[in-house]
C-alpha cells in the first residue's frame, strides 16, 4: 500500500492564462490547423418564417409554383416576372399618391 498523501492547497495555483477574444481565436485557429473543428450545431440561426414555415422563404409554396410555371410558359426567368410585378406595384403606388385619386381598392372620391 502506498503512503496516503495530502494535498497542499497552497502549492497549487492556476497559471495566468489569457482568455480574451484574440486568444480564443488563436486557440480556434490552432485547433483548426490540427483538424479540431466546430462540431456543435449553431444556435440562434435564421428562424423559419412564421408566414411560410420556411427558413429561406421568399413566397408561399403555391405562389412559387405559379411563378415558376408562368415563367416557363413565357420562356423568361422568374426575375422578369418579379420586375413586371414591381413595375405594377410602383404604378399603383403612384396612382394612390395622386391627390383625389383612390387606389385600386378605394374608389376615388
Amino acid at each position: 500500500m502506498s503512503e496516503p498523501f495530502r494535498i497542499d492547497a497552497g502549492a497549487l495555483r492556476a497559471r495566468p492564462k489569457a482568455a480574451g477574444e484574440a486568444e480564443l481565436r488563436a486557440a480556434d485557429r490552432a485547433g483548426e490547423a490540427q483538424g479540431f473543428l466546430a462540431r456543435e450545431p449553431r444556435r440562434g440561426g435564421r428562424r423559419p418564417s412564421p408566414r411560410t414555415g420556411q427558413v429561406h422563404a421568399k413566397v408561399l409554396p403555391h405562389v412559387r409554383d405559379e411563378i415558376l410555371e408562368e415563367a416557363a410558359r413565357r420562356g423568361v426567368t422568374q426575375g422578369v416576372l418579379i420586375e413586371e410585378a414591381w413595375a405594377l406595384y410602383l404604378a399603383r403606388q403612384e396612382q394612390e399618391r395622386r391627390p383625389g385619386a383612390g387606389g385600386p381598392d378605394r374608389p376615388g372620391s
Partner: protein
Amino acid sequence: MPTIVIASPKGGAGKSTAAVVLGTELARAGARVTLMDCDPNGSLTLWAERAAPPGGVTLRSGVSEGEVVRAIRSAEADGAVVVVDLEGVASRLVSRAISQADLVITPMRATTLDATIGVRALQLVAEEEEALGRRIAHAVVFTMTRAIRSKQHQGIERSLREQGVDVIAPGLMERAAYSALFEFGGDLATLPPQGNMEAARDEAARFARAVYDRLVAREAAA
C-alpha cells in the same frame, strides 16, 4: 486552482474513467474538485446520478463550446481543482479547453490505433503553445493496461518517451473497480468490493499523486 484537461480525439480511450478516478482521489487527498462534463454522452453526469458525488467534488454538466472557457475560469476562481472530461472527437471544444489547461492528460490504451489517434492531442497542445505563447504541460497515461505489459505496449511507451513525451506512472489497469464506478457512483473508498479493491485504491492514489506532483513541479519551475 489549476485545470487538468483530459483530452484525446479517440473514443473509448478511458477519459471519463481517468477523470472520475483523478477527481475523486484528489478530493480524498483534501482538494476541492470541480468535475466538468463537456462530453455530450454525459458519462460523468451518469456517474453522478448513480450516487451523490463524494465530499469535495462538484459536478458541472453539459458545458458547451461557447461556455467552456468561462466555466473553467469561474471554477478556478472558486478555488477548485478543475478536471475537464471531453468527448472523444476532434472538436473546437477540445482546443478551447486546452487553451485554459495547466496540465493536459491524454489517456491512451496501449494499442497502435489509440497511440496514432491520441498523438493528435499532443500535436494540438504543441500548436496551441505556439499560438498562445505559453507552455502547456502535457502527459500521457496508459489505460486498461494488463499486469504483463505486451510488446506493443512496451514499444509504444518507449517510442513516446524517446520523443520526450511525459508518461505518467502508474497507468490505470483494466479493473472491475474502475468500471463499477459508473455502475454505483461515488469513489473507490465507498464502492462495494469489485475484484482486487486494495490494488485499485493503491493504484488510483498513486496515479493522483503523480498528477499532483506534476502540478506542483510545474508551479515550482514557473
